[in-house]
């Protein structure tokens, strides 16, 4: 028995669901961003695995995985900047205590 596409898809599904659980249950905004990073990693595994097993001649999947890594870095930078801004004006980073739209 050798490793096939379904193995990689199963691992990425589990990683995605772990990330989803983190996003749904955490109070800390930084921990929510960690869950989002796990979910983006799961999607990257999917893209590279489909590239390897379904279209081995092309590099489209790897290209999109690189684009997603770039966008994940952007998302982390902007998200953490928002966390810092919220912490400065509201003195909390727990998302269930941030309930005002305008200060």
């Amino acid at each position, binding site marked *: 028995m*050798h*490793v*096939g596409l*379904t*193995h*990689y*898809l*199963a*691992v990425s599904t589990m*990683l*995605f*669901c*772990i*990330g989803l*659980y*983190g996003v*749904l*249950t*955490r*109070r*800390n905004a*930084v*921990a929510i961003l*960690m*869950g989002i*990073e796990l979910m983006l*990693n799961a999607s990257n*595994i999917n893209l*590279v695995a489909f*590239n*390897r*097993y*379904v*279209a*081995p*001649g092309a*590099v489209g999947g*790897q290209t*999109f*995985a*690189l*684009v997603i*890594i*770039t*966008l*994940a*870095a*952007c*998302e*982390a*930078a*902007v998200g*953490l*900047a*928002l*966390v*810092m*801004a919220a*912490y400065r004006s509201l*003195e909390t980073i727990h998302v269930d205590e941030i309930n005002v739209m305008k200060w």
Partner: protein
Amino acid sequence: MGELAAFIILSCVTLIPAVVVVTSGNIVRSALSLVPTFLGVTGLYILLHAEFVAGIQILIYAGAITVLLLFVIMLTAGGTGTRIRQVNEQVPLGAMAAVWLGFLILLVIFRTPWQSAATAAPQYNIASVGTAFLTDYVLIFEVTSLVLLVSLIGAIIIARREE
């Protein structure tokens, strides 16, 4: 056989720290547990013959994003956060949603007859990825660089102290 063993070990290295990331009450431990998860994903990329993606994964995820998360944890109050409740009241609901979604996706994955085209292991190299970026996917490349610039400026403006 060796490939299967490597795959199982790398999957455990990926998934067990990921569980620690979402369940640990210590937020610094969560952030540091991201590193073995990202390194396990890097190993999976190497098993899939995507060496360039693996290198970029180490540089950006394990190197940059983890350090950025740790910086923000240190800059905000609470420290490791072990004395504060870290989870909200949706724990049973969130676990149920995650387990059900995972069950459904796994069901679909194992029932779909995937058409596998892979025979021998293909040899990718950095040159082919770079050529694809600058010929077929040049629009995506340019738009991504624009997004990177905009998010850079946006992050500086949002995080700047207002006068």
